[in-house]
């Protein structure tokens, strides 16, 4: 185990998230009721994904600047774990939506068909598919230097596409997903004080977990590609 303190912090924050996330009081909103607790889990997946993708693109830029193969390893590993968190966020969001948006008790009842047309869902799917293509592209280039270089360039493009597809376009279109007027989870006036006590630690905890997994991936690849790194 290397640099233990933040891993311990990660474990403590996640345990606190699970305990506090289920036991602390939350405001009972008309439609959401107790499902608002998903904020500590579903939304945090996307926050962790964003952080991991930002780290990934920074390493891609650094790779393009000096051609150090190590930076390419970092970029790939962080993008990989970012996709994992993105998929988890997508699935949890789908479950959450099917019991709140498409709920017969919902005054503004929406059918499943209209949920599938939700701009936020389509945007998120697009962003994830663009990142899938990053790995397809990489695996289709046999030459290591070329693979790293095209991969790094494509990663910057994928990161640029992330913003219109999950941040901008869903907000321009009518959507059931919260966040039409801003950042609902991050707005200080919007979020209940009681929820903030768990929500912010939860974001940090899940993000640290993602970084932990990515760092393991990096170290494993470093061992595997030892000969390449010292060439």
């Amino acid at each position, binding site marked *: 185990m290397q640099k233990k303190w933040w891993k311990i912090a990660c474990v403590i924050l996640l345990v606190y998230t699970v305990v506090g996330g289920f036991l602390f009081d939350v405001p009972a909103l008309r439609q959401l*009721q*107790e499902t608002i607790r998903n904020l500590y889990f579903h939304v945090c997946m996307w926050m962790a994904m964003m952080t991991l993708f930002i780290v990934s693109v920074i390493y891609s830029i650094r790779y393009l600047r000096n051609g150090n193969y190590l930076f390419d390893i970092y970029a790939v590993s962080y993008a990989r774990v970012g996709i994992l968190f993105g998929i988890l966020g997508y699935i949890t969001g789908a479950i959450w939506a099917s019991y709140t948006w498409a709920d017969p008790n919902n005054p503004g009842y929406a059918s499943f068909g209209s949920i599938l047309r939700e701009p936020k869902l389509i945007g998120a799917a697009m962003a994830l598919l663009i990142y899938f293509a990053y790995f397809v592209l990489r695996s289709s280039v046999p030459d290591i230097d070329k693979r790293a270089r095209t991969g790094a360039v494509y990663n910057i493009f994928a990161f640029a596409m992330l913003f219109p597809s999950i941040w901008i376009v869903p907000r321009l279109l009518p959507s059931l997903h919260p966040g039409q007027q801003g950042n609902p989870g991050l707005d200080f006036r919007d979020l209940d004080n009681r929820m903030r006590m768990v929500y912010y630690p939860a974001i940090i905890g899940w993000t640290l977990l993602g970084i932990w997994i990515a760092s393991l991936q990096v170290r494993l690849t470093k*061992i595997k590609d030892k000969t390449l790194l010292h060439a």
Partner: protein
Amino acid sequence: MPKSISRLLIFFLLLFTSITSLAQDFNNGEKAEMADSMRSNGKIYVVVAVLLVILAGLIFYLVSLDRKISRLEKEKS
């Protein structure tokens, strides 16, 4: 499509139909205050316990992976 995959698909299809019908039962009941009753029974702690076990298992696995990789790093260098 191989037989095993189609079987798996059918399995998941059946799994999800049961989930949706269960949800309808909850929603069509007199009250949709499922969570409050869970609280009054004190059974929410069961969920917390289950999730803590899952979290503990995952973290235990991560730590053991971390250790293994550390050992490999030492061997190779």
